[in-house]
């Protein structure tokens, strides 16, 4: 058994989660049994698992486990048919598609929120006192059972959270009290778990207990993907193997690794903690070994794999530039827009499409302002996050201006569609993934103008473009399913 450890499966996931999904799928195809062990409470998990087309039997959430809700079939719970509705006394007043009110003799006593993405199924119910204070809130799991109830301190902050079994008994209680002057979770209590109560001071202690329970049932190889969970994994007793997978660049300063390792990575990169530490690229592994003269036991295996298109692209008339990935400050989207502006001034038929979720609404506003300032409204388009983006098919060129990438999954994905890359030259991508004149260009002088210049050059040379598209496909084959499978096979033996 191989255990992948994570915090959550979200509606919007980062590369770490996708990497885990890919491995889950791979291990399954390789005939290895693997499970993703998740720490965070997520009442919509069953829906998210379906969205990401994951095999539900390969995902085990800690709360689900303790709530005895593993493998529970979904049952639709229309809010108006809830047994808790006292229809002889209360009126349920529909306000809109998302909300209904609960009224007793004309007074508002509760609000029912509809389960996201459903029509009329119960999502959560908030109850109020006669002064309008929120007194009590009940949350339903996607699968249609009352999963968590919450109470509040007089100041409005969360006081208690009780996680329920589908039968209604309390499985787990979290108490929120003072911790260094702030109101935070201070006690996690498992109730009658296998007949005994267990108290934990932190969620990670509980997660460690959970990992040990799972490992005791079936010992396995643990892979720690999240630095926040390294200690939990290290505290598993009698695991077959403990591995850490490093998704991002672990250095304080990418350009000067000798300046040191980020605090979050210290546990993972300390010799003797993990049996093996896996890096997505050889270059990154080597830097760690060389710069720190480390005796760390390292291995290399890719983050993910790609399905490679069969035929390369020819330069089209309508040229579409793309960027896919998180739309966030650290991705330096402003430079991308400025770069495109420079290109657009030369060729007004160009279009630029960016796809991904915004890191925050402030940044979104900022970018939209920039688009209008640059008068690019007709040429630039932001597309919402999509699980399997379709825009690669009609894309001509991928632009990237981020200052750092652990691997550059988005660029690999692009190359797998035969779309060449023009990017700022960044460590671990330059000469590893993106190679000049082979599948794209690394622009050493990191200015939008030079990035634009290089991109325009490429778009003006159809012969070279076709060649780079071929090269991109060739590069991508190194990261296809076969290569991915082979690399991980070397690292993890069940």
């Amino acid at each position, binding site marked *: 058994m191989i255990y992948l450890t994570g915090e959550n499966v979200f509606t919007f996931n980062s590369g770490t989660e996708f990497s885990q999904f890919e491995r889950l799928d791979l291990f399954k195809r390789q005939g290895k049994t693997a499970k993703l062990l998740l720490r965070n409470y997520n009442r919509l998990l069953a829906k998210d698992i379906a969205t990401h087309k994951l095999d539900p039997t390969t995902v085990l959430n800690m709360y689900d486990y303790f709530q005895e809700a593993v493998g529970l079939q979904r049952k639709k719970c229309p809010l108006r048919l809830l047994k808790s509705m006292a229809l002889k006394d209360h009126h349920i007043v529909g306000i809109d598609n998302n909300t209904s009110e609960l009224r007793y003799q004309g007074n508002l006593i509760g609000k029912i929120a509809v389960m996201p993405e459903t029509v009329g199924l119960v999502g959560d119910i908030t109850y109020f006192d006669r002064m309008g204070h929120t*007194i*009590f809130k009940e949350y339903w799991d996607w699968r249609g059972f009352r999963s968590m109830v919450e*109470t*509040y*301190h007089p100041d409005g902050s969360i006081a208690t959270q009780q996680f329920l079994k589908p039968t209604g008994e309390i499985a787990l209680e979290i*108490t929120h009290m*003072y911790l260094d002057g702030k109101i935070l979770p201070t006690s996690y209590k498992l109730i009658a778990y296998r007949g005994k109560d267990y108290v934990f001071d932190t969620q990670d202690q509980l997660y460690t207990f959970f990992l040990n329970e799972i490992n005791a049932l079936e010992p396995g190889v643990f892979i720690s993907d999240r630095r926040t969970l390294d200690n939990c994994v290290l505290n598993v007793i009698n695991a077959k193997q403990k591995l850490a997978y490093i998704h991002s660049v672990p250095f304080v300063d990418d350009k000067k690794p000798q300046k040191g390792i980020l605090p979050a990575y210290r546990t993972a990169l300390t010799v003797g903690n993990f049996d093996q530490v896996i890096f997505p690229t050889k270059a990154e592994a080597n830097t760690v070994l060389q710069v720190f003269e480390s005796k760390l036991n390292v291995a290399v295996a890719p983050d993910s794999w790609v399905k490679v298109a069969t035929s390369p692209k020819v330069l089209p008339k309508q040229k579409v530039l793309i960027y896919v990935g998180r739309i966030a400050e650290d991705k330096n989207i402003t430079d991308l827009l400025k770069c495109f502006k420079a290109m657009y001034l030369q060729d007004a038929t160009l279009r630029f499409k960016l796809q991904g979720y915004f890191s925050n609404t402030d940044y979104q506003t900022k970018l939209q302002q920039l688009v209008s300032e640059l008068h690019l409204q007709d040429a630039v388009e932001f597309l919402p996050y999509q699980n399997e983006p379709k825009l690669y098919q009609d894309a001509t060129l991928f632009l990237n201006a981020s200052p750092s990438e652990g691997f550059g999954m988005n660029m690999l994905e692009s190359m797998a569609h035969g779309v060449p890359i023009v990017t700022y030259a960044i460590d671990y991508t330059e000469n590893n993934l993106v190679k000049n004149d082979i599948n794209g260009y690394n622009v050493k002088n990191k200015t939008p103008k030079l990035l634009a210049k290089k991109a325009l050059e490429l778009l003006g040379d159809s012969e070279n473009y076709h060649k780079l598209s071929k090269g991109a496909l060739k590069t991508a084959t190194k990261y296809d399913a076969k290569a991915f499978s082979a690399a991980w096979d070397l690292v993890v033996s069940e």
Partner: protein
Amino acid sequence: MIYFINFGMPDHKSGIEHAELKRIKLFEKYQTPCQLVVRDWNRTLHMTANAAGVDDEHLLSMFDYFQEASHVLPKRVTVSDLDLGLKNLVITEESDRSRYLVTRPNKKLVARVNYDNSQAKQVISTELFDGYNNLYRVDLYDARGFCSLRQWYTPDNKIGSEEWLTPTGKSVLRTFYKYDLQNKLVKTSWILRDKNHEVHTFDNLDQLFEYFLNRINEKGNNVFVLDRSLLADGALTRLKRPAYTVMHLHNSQAGDAQDPMNSIVNNNYEYALANLDRYSAVVSATKRQTADVIKRFDPKCKMFTIPVGIVSDETFNAKPVLEKDRTFGKVIAVARIAHEKRLDDLVKAIAIVKQEIPEVTLDIYGYADPSNDYGEKRKVIETIAKMGLDDSVKLKGYKSELAPVLDKAQIFGLTSRMEGFNLAIMEAISHGVVGVTYDVNYGPNDIVINEQNGAVVSYGDYRALAQAMIKLFKDPKLMQQMSTGAYTSSKRYSSENVWRAWQALFDDAKQTLKGDVFK
């Protein structure tokens, strides 16, 4: 079902609880089901009720009902039975404070476990601390050995919410404390997850209790006897389904019982009396009170006089004690030493009697009322001293078994300011003790009848009271005649007679509800 409504059945009982206990025994004797409905949560309810003779079949507590805990086999729970969820705990006993301190190996406090010394250290409550020294919860254990109520604390150490659980650990009822507009932390709400899965919210305990009464009356046709008016005087007028509602007076309806037509209404009964016509019936313990209620309030509902005291068959079966076998001059009083009992008047009367009958003695049986730093007791002792009666008048304290005392006494003296019934004087006449009492409402002036079983003298006239006693002591024949009359007149309070009075009420209930109520 016939329900009697009260807040509880504590060890320390008032006349209302005693009346209920006698009534439950009577119903049992006549094989008529009834239940004591209890509103308030109390961890020892079953223990104290059972000790008073109310078994679980006759007890319906609201909290039990929602907590599904009406019938729970008592279980021993001591500190070693608790699961505090941590390993290697250190337990230290603080026997002077009846508790254990439970700590982690690093000395951090995990819990204070409070126990009941009189119940072999059965756990009363646990005060629980998190890993950061916050008291986050107090768990209160029902005396039957399960965690019944959990009080969750706020970060600044006040109760923030309360939660009642089933014995299996399901949370069914909660209350919440919030800041009101004056920034005062107050209990603002209750939320109930009922057995039928419905969720209800309430602003206060009264609303919850009303909901509960409607729940137990869901099929209708029950009889509710309201023994503590303020618990449900509104709720009983608003029941959703048919029921026979009885407002039971246990005290004078008038603030000044001697002025029943004009004095301000007894606060406890004010609301109920203002809504009398929305009840099915009113019960009072004496004919005089029934007549006064009719005179002043002219109710449309039925009026019944049903004594709250019942003389046991055992007492009736005992051989009467003749006057010659009693202690000459022995006067007794059985009363709390409290202002409304006005025992200093009785002492003054004895002083007068003593001038003519030197053998006279007075024994007072009863607790001293602690209010005003035992002011009434001090007043009585002062009066005794002032009258030079230290040898003749004794404060004997409370005694539960009075039959031997009653069988030796000749006269029972009563000088109260106000009475609801007075079980003690009824007990006394059933033992052949002659009653000499003020004309005080309500009870003594019904129980004692002039020239039949004693003497009723003007209210507050202790000289007349003394003269009545002197007359009896000087005339042994009269004394014997009155004593025989006392035995005879107590037949009014035989279970047979009291049951007959209840039956009249049930007949009316059946007629009103058009159906049988004994379910």
